[in-house]
C-alpha cells in the first residue's frame, strides 16, 4: 500500500507540467539586461529578488548570506549581461545561479556561528501565527539544506519537480524525494508539537 502511494507520487511528479515558471513576464526586462541596459536591473530586481533571496535563505539559513547571494547574482549578470542572451526561463536561470552562489557561500561559512534568522514569517504580521512561524522555522532548520531548498522551490516558488531538479542539478526523482522526505519530517515534527 505504501509502495503504491510512493509510486503514485513519482507518477504525479513526472506528470506535472514541466514549465510552471514562465519567463514571459520577465522576457522584455531580461532582453534589456542582456543588451547591457543597466537601468533594466531595477525592474529585474523587483521581479525576482524576493525569490532569489528566499531560495538562498532557505538553503543557507542566514539572511546575511542570502543578501550576499542576491548581490552575487546581480553583479554577475551586470558584469556579463550576455549570460542572459537567449535564456528562455530567466527566473529558473537566476534561481540556478542563486543555488550555486548559495552553495559556494555555504562552503565558506563558519559552522560554529549559530544563526536565528526567521525563514518564514506570518502573512501581514498576523500575531496569532507568529508562534507558528517560529516553530516552523525551528523545524525547518532541523532539515538538511537540500530538503529545505526543495520545499521552498516546490511549495513557495511554484517550481515543478523537474524544475527543482534542473535548478539544483540533481535527477528529478532526487528532487521529488528531497521534497517528500522534508515534508514528511516536517509534519512529524510539527504534528508532535501541536
Amino acid at each position, binding site marked *: 500500500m505504501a509502495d503504491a502511494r510512493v509510486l503514485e507520487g513519482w507518477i504525479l511528479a513526472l506528470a506535472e507540467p514541466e514549465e510552471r515558471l514562465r519567463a514571459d513576464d520577465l522576457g522584455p526586462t531580461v532582453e534589456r539586461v542582456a543588451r547591457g541596459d543597466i537601468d533594466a536591473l531595477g525592474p529585474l530586481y523587483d521581479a525576482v529578488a524576493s525569490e532569489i533571496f528566499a531560495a538562498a535563505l532557505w538553503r543557507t539559513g542566514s539572511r546575511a548570506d542570502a543578501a550576499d547571494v542576491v548581490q552575487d547574482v546581480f553583479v554577475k549578470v*551586470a*558584469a556579463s549581461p550576455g549570460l542572459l542572451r537567449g535564456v528562455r526561463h530567466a527566473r529558473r536561470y537566476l534561481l540556478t545561479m542563486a543555488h550555486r552562489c548559495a552553495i559556494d557561500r555555504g562552503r565558506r561559512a563558519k559552522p560554529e556561528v549559530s544563526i536565528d534568522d526567521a525563514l518564514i514569517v506570518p502573512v501581514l504580521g498576523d500575531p496569532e501565527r507568529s508562534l507558528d512561524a517560529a516553530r516552523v522555522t525551528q523545524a525547518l532548520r532541523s532539515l538538511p539544506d537540500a530538503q529545505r531548498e526543495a520545499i521552498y522551490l516546490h511549495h513557495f516558488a511554484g517550481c515543478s519537480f523537474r524544475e527543482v531538479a534542473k535548478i539544483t542539478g540533481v535527477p528529478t526523482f532526487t528532487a521529488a524525494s528531497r521534497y517528500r522526505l522534508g515534508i514528511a519530517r516536517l509534519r512529524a515534527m510539527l504534528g508532535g508539537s501541536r
Partner: protein
Amino acid sequence: MSDFDGLRPAEPPPELRGRVLAAAREAVGSRSPGLFELLVADRAVRISVAVVSLLFIAHLLVDRVPVRTSAPVTAPAADEASVPAEPGLTAAEQIDELEPAL
C-alpha cells in the same frame, strides 16, 4: 501543506535593493571590454592585430609558392633476373681495360 497556511518566506531587507544595484553598477563600470571594444579604443592593440594579421597572410602566401623539386629518377622496370643498369663502362669495355692485368 496546511502547516504553511498564513505563513510566507521571509522577504529581503528593503535596503538590499540599493546595495545590490550599486554593486551591479560598479560591476558594469569594471566590466572587461571585449576584443572589438579594445580594437576601437587602443592604438597599440590595433597595431598588434594588424601585424599579426600581416604575418599570417604572409605565411599563407609563402606556403602557396610552389617549391621546385628535381624530377624523380626512375629506372626502367626490371624483372628479378636482370641486373640493374649501372652507369659506366659496358662489359666489353671493361674487358679491354682489364686486359693488361689478365
